């Protein structure tokens, strides 16, 4: 990171109440980064129309989230939206584009082609199965193509990830707000035991319960 933000945490944390200063600096930096994500115009196939253009147009407006300035050059872009299929021939170019972006750079993989190769997984000799095999991806937006609203939700998730996950104490590490965070101190065999119970319960369909009485009593009301 920059000159100040590199060694500021070390100094401030020793001072009383310094930790609070660091988090407030984090807050300012993350707030400014999250609310002005400039996407790079990088669309390969169908997702480009739906995610980049339709979301950028006036109906599903990206401007409400500060992301409507679609910069053509990676030098001025913060957000690389991989919209469409990544193919073996494009992989080194995608890597170059990602490397040439200015440092706090984020990647959203939209569409099942960018997430896992999508409809082109089987019997295709040139489709890379997922953009995350080439560049680190922050947010995945599923869909083929995803609706513009889905992309907007992905953008909001990325903004939450930036605000909650980044700090100048760990400059190049972003903590993903994993929703189902495991409770601390849980051991592996506890998980295995619980998994066994779940699998056993799911493997039998119990029709003798109240679902059956409900059927005879009133007939299917729905």
């Amino acid at each position, binding site marked *: 990171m920059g000159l100040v933000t590199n060694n500021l945490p070390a100094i401030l944390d020793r001072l009383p109440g310094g930790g609070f200063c660091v988090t407030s600096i984090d807050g300012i930096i993350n707030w400014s980064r999250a609310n002005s994500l400039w996407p790079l115009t990088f669309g*390969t196939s169908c997702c480009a129309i739906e995610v980049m253009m339709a979301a950028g*147009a006036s109906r599903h407006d990206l401007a409400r989230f500060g992301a409507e300035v679609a910069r053509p050059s990676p030098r001025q872009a913060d957000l690389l939206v991989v919209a469409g299929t990544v193919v073996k021939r494009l992989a080194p170019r995608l890597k170059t584009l990602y490397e040439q972006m200015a440092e706090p750079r984020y990647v959203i993989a939209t569409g099942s082609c960018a997430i896992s190769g999508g409809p082109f997984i089987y019997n295709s000799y*040139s489709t890379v199965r997922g953009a995350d095999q080439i560049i680190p991806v922050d947010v995945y937006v599923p869909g083929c193509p995803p609706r513009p609203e889905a992309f907007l939700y992905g953008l909001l998730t990325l903004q939450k990830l930036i605000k909650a996950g980044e700090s100048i104490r760990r400059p190049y590490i972003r903590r993903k707000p994993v929703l189902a965070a495991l409770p601390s101190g849980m051991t592996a065999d506890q998980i295995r035991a619980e998994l066994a119970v779940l699998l056993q319960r799911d493997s039998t369909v119990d029709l003798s319960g109240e679902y059956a009485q409900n059927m005879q009593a009133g007939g299917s009301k729905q």
Partner: protein
Amino acid sequence: MTIRPITLADRIAAGQKVESLLSTQEYFVNMGPQHPSTHGVLRLLVRLDGETVREVIPVVGYVHRGIEKMGEYLTYRKFIHLSDRLDYLSAITNNWVVAMAVEKAAGIEINDRIQTIRTLCAELQRIQSHQLWWGVFGMDLGAFTAFLYGFRDREVVTDIFEETTGARLTMNYIQPGGVMFDIHPDFVKNVKKFLAYFKPKLEEYETLVSGNVIVQARLRGVGILSPGAAVSIGTTGPVLRASGVAHDLRKSEAYGVYGKVQFDIPVGVKGDCWDRYWVRIEEMRQSIRIIEQLIDSIPEGKHMTIKPTAKIKLPEGLYYNQMETARGILGALIVSDGGEKPYRIHLRSPNFNNLWSVTAMAPGLRIADLVAILSSIDVVVPDIDR
């Protein structure tokens, strides 16, 4: 005499010759995979002398997923799903081409209701595709507001498609034997509302961009494609018609219910960027005319003539069926060995041929004209690479 294939590096080395100290040296510029005006990942290797284009070498393959190889492992119904992703701006017409090829080969007969619905959806799709082209065309010439106007009206058509087919862009709607679902109850009402809404908007397009003197100056006389070159390069659709060749499959083969409706084919005069622009605007008007003649007389009947789970087997042989999409003629060539899956399937892509007309038009013009030409050809890259 052995034939030795060359590589791109040899091609570039051939272009880098220096005549004399006084002459201006030419250099290569990549209008590369990620470029705002190439509508996708198309790379134009341009040999420049100062600002003047000496030669354009299109390099494609950046979104080549091998759909023809995958076609050999999929049944005909499953391949329809992939045909959407070729030219995703005219997805329904892509489905129709493959479905019709299968129906003609397997002898599945189609009732009038299905034909009318298919023709209506194809014409709506043409309008939707031209709206997007018009918006992006304005954006390429620097007028960003045209993009917003174009997309505002395109959303209305997208809603109509979403009601009937369930998807906004890749519909997977036309299956061999009919259409996936019957049209939405208020499909007719919405289409009429759209036509009434869009007609004045089309005049607004004319005043907003067509009447603009800068646009006229940038388009008239730029990128002239002679009829002979257009036919020899195999361009089809608006690019061919703008060069003065009145070839439209909707008239010559009259598939669907095109035989029963009156419409005329806009044909350009000089074959420059302005004619290609004007031809597409005129085509939107003709599409509105076709829809008006059809929207009130959709005949009754089933929307699918065969069971959705019926197995489709094509008798052994070679079948070829082509159709006029928004960008040109899309052809489906199926070689069947009697099984459920095609032995070989090849798709004649309109954008593939239209793209190469750039190499004929661009030499001698400037970089800004090259952007105008590329946008006037309206190229969709996954359709080139397949």
